[in-house]
């Protein structure tokens, strides 16, 4: 029922929507696996945007923007009370 694939160790972009749950369950969820995932993600971002000869502000600004968004989501519960209208 799946496409022509030898193993299920495909990348996320190649996985079809129907196979997504199966693919997610197949991943490595041990602490070592999760740490490995974080490390890989970090090095992917670092080598793409920061560890270059002529880096730009985008490497840092994207991280800051993500941090801002993350904190906004965290504090949305208190911010809800400062809305100007109650019903939208």
């Amino acid at each position, binding site marked *: 029922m799946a496409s022509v694939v030898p193993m299920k160790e495909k990348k996320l972009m190649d996985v079809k929507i129907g196979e997504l749950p199966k693919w997610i369950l197949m991943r490595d969820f041990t602490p070592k696996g999760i740490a490995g995932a974080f490390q890989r993600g970090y090095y992917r971002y670092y080598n793409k945007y920061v560890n270059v000869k002529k880096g730009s502000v985008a490497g840092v600004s994207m991280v800051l923007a993500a941090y801002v968004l993350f904190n906004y989501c965290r504090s949305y519960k208190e*911010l809800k009370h400062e809305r100007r209208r109650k019903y939208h």
Partner: protein
Amino acid sequence: MLSRAVLSTVATAAPCVKNAALLGPGVLQATRIFHTGQPSQAPVPPLPEYGGKVRHGLIPEEFFQFLYPKTGVTGPYVLGTGLILYFLSKEIYVVTPETISAVSTIGLLVYVVKKYGASIGEFADKLNEQKIAQLEEAKQASMKYIQDAINLEKSQQALVQKRHYLFDVQRNNIAMALEVTYRDRLHRVYREVKNRLDYQIAVQNMMRRKEQEHMINWVEKHVVQSISAQQGGVAQRSFEVAVVTFLWHGCKFRAADVKVKILQKSSPPSLPQG
């Protein structure tokens, strides 16, 4: 536990070893072999020149490319505008006093980045280039030093091939010195021998001269005596002539003197002969 197993194997393998406990830590390290695989010979890939492209400093280019087939160029911008209006209208993003401070801060940051971004980048690039130049210089100096050492070694090795010149010169010198000494001694021998022979000759000459002088004196004396004894006659004169002739044959150089003396004696005495 593992170390104990290793120790027991070592103790059984080498029964001649008296004190196995002494080998403990060293043995454990000796049984582990490191660096068995081939080191990776691939050259380190150079650092990429530019990072991933990012539009407006916030959104990676891949997002725009992802939406391009379906929505064209304006797709992501329309999506962005729609999202912003939606968040504002539904107050998912709440407008608070913080919004104003955020807007002014972000505006200031954007202005600074737009104005001085390029110059700061050039400054950083210059620093990098200086660092790289220093390292390159160190590398070149080290390479040059090693190359000089190699050349020196090669030249010295070549010199070893030419040592025979030195030995030839020394051999020639020694041969010449030997020849000089030999000739010097030969010359001395010749001189000494000549000296001795000259001495012999001189002695002979002297003896002959002395004999001649003595004989001449003796004959002279007797002739003078005989002349003064008898006051001359023909026999006397012929005898004198004979004596003179004899003396003339005997030693030629005194004949004149003797003749003079005889004539002096026959003539009236003028001066005593001395």
